[in-house]
């Protein structure tokens, strides 16, 4: 049961990781667009 709980937690954290990575990519894109606008 401990192992399965760990696996579940790992899944959740992985999903969060994925979400964060996507948001970071998106934010970087936005930042670069803005930078180009200013240049």
């Amino acid at each position, binding site marked *: 049961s401990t*192992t399965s709980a760990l696996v579940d937690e790992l*899944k*959740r954290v992985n*999903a969060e*990781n994925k979400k964060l990575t996507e*948001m970071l990519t*998106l*934010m970087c894109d936005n930042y670069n667009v803005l930078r180009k606008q*200013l240049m």
Partner: protein
Amino acid sequence: ISLDLNTNPFDRNFPDKLPKKEVKVSTSADLERKWLVKDESASELREELNRVNSENKKLTEMLATVCEKYYALHSHLEKLQSRQSPEMDQTEQPTKKRKQDTDELLGFPIGLGSGKTENSSSNEDHHQHEQKNQLLSCKRPVVTDSFNKAKISTVYVPADSSDTSLTVKDGYQWRKYGQKVTRDNPSPRAYFRCSFAPSCPVKKKVQRSAEDPSLLVATYEGTHNHLGPNAFEGDATSQVGSSTVTLDLVNGGGGHRLALEKNERGTMQDVLVQQMASSLTKDSKFTAALAAAISGRLLEQSRT
């Protein structure tokens, strides 16, 4: 009663004495191995979990940094845009929006740490759209406030109640670009920008005081990036050497402190004239020419 279990390991014949029980022993060893494997996998899982968690933390920090930079850049862009199209009304509206957006931003990191799992790949578009909304909704954080802060000062000028021109003689030249009636005051409010605009960002609002109609309230936004007004230009909204009585409500804490503000323009001109005169008097050629001209004029006058 003998307590000997015949488990003497030093007995060479001991293994032979345990014919079938060996099977049982091997099963428990297997279980033990299985437990060990489980323990190993659990520790591996824990390690992996720690690793992903630390990666998550790093990602969150990076995201926060990028967000901060993005907002700083965004506010800078807005600042530039507002300089290009200086509409006084538009500068008032974002203040309300800024507060609202700041509140939204404060809620932003909570959304990140909510720990919602999204395993379904069919929801990815919706998920991305949601993220975009989240990112777009957190424009203008607190950082931008200090960035955009312009110096604002209020000046109270006594004015004739019959004068409807809303002219404040502060020594600078202004261009009127708008007028509107506000809810809180029956007198219209006039908007001016410095005649050096767009290079000079200073703006001025003038309105008759609602409490005391004998006073005009001039609100200045920004600081002039040039010297005092040019003495050789003049229009209806500027006068040389004027002085205004100011009532500083911003810094006075409601104490209605009266201060006499002398215009620096006259002083500046005097200094320039004095400098010019002193440099000319030091020039021997100039004094000689001046003396010759005066003596020549005097001789002409004496002849006539």
